């Protein structure tokens, strides 16, 4: 009996993985290999945006689900890794937008007297409770400052802070030029500096 052979060539980072979709188990194995190769990079990319491990893992799962759904539509116009990280960035930005909306809603609820516990940011273990408090406060300040940046500045800046992304790769992910990325990172740094200075000078006053 003849089998229908659907062969898809997927360029993954430096090497090229060929997916031979001759059956369910083969495609599952290939997808599983793809996840194994990129899961850490995707999780760490999401983590840079959301600063929370659980959220980062949840978003990473959504990224791979989306990738599985649209794998048929992937047209080799870019590297598979670039395509995956682009989905990761989009999903992370969506998550931040949802969180911002939720935050606004919860502050509205507090105004009308209904308490709503805000999700706290998971932080690395610290020695003392005061250190933890201070660190938590700093993360909040940083998140607020990052939230105030336009999406393209935020994305370029946060990807530049992630290990493993060159400016060329960031440009590929954001579908723009390297010089545009350099400019976005520069402007993001400047804006962040300004926001944080403003915050801390107001706090001191």
């Amino acid at each position, binding site marked *: 009996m003849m089998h*229908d052979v*659907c062969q898809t060539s997927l360029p993954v980072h430096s090497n090229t993985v060929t997916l031979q*979709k001759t*059956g*369910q188990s083969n*495609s*599952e194995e290939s997808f*599983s290999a793809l*996840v*194994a190769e990129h*899961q*850490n990079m995707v*999780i*760490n990319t999401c*983590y*840079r945006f959301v*600063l929370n*491990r659980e959220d*980062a*893992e949840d978003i*990473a*799962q959504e990224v*791979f*689900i989306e990738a*599985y*759904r649209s794998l*048929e539509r992937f047209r080799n116009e870019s590297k598979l890794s670039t395509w995956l990280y682009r989905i990761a960035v989009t999903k992370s930005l969506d998550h931040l937008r949802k969180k911002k909306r939720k935050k606004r809603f919860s502050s509205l609820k507090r105004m009308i007297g209904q308490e709503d516990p805000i999700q706290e940011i998971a932080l*690395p273990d610290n020695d003392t409770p005061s250190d933890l408090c201070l*660190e938590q406060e*700093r*993360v909040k*300040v*940083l998140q607020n*400052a990052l939230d105030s940046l336009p999406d393209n500045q935020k994305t370029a800046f*946060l990807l530049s*802070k992630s*290990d493993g992304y060159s400016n060329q790769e960031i440009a590929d992910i954001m579908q723009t030029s390297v010089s545009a990325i350099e400019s976005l990172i520069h402007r993001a740094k400047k804006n*962040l*500096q300004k926001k*944080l*200075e403003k915050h*801390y*000078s107001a706090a*001191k006053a």
Partner: protein
Amino acid sequence: MQKRDKRIDDQVRTTLEILDNLPQLEAHHLFRVHLMNRIEQNSPGMLHMPYMAGYGLKMALMALLVVINIGTAFLFMQSGNDSAMISENDMLERLNNEYSSPALSYYLDETQEDAALE
């Protein structure tokens, strides 16, 4: 004033350093298992999609043929019923015309009157 500015600069630098010092995360060892479960739960059969894709066209054609066959049979039966109904109606109408003439009604009425007298 200079001291204050320096303190603000230090705070800003420390805050920005958070991003540089973020730990490199390793995926949970069950990450892939959870992922596959979620894919399966979200849309059962999604994992079978690439396998089924090759048969999609054949299945669609088969389904179309079945629908056409059923449709044709249904139409044929429907037209048979209609012609039977028409002939039945024709017969009733013809009978009605034959026995509802005024001449016949006279005899019918007379017969009824005779029966009443008797």
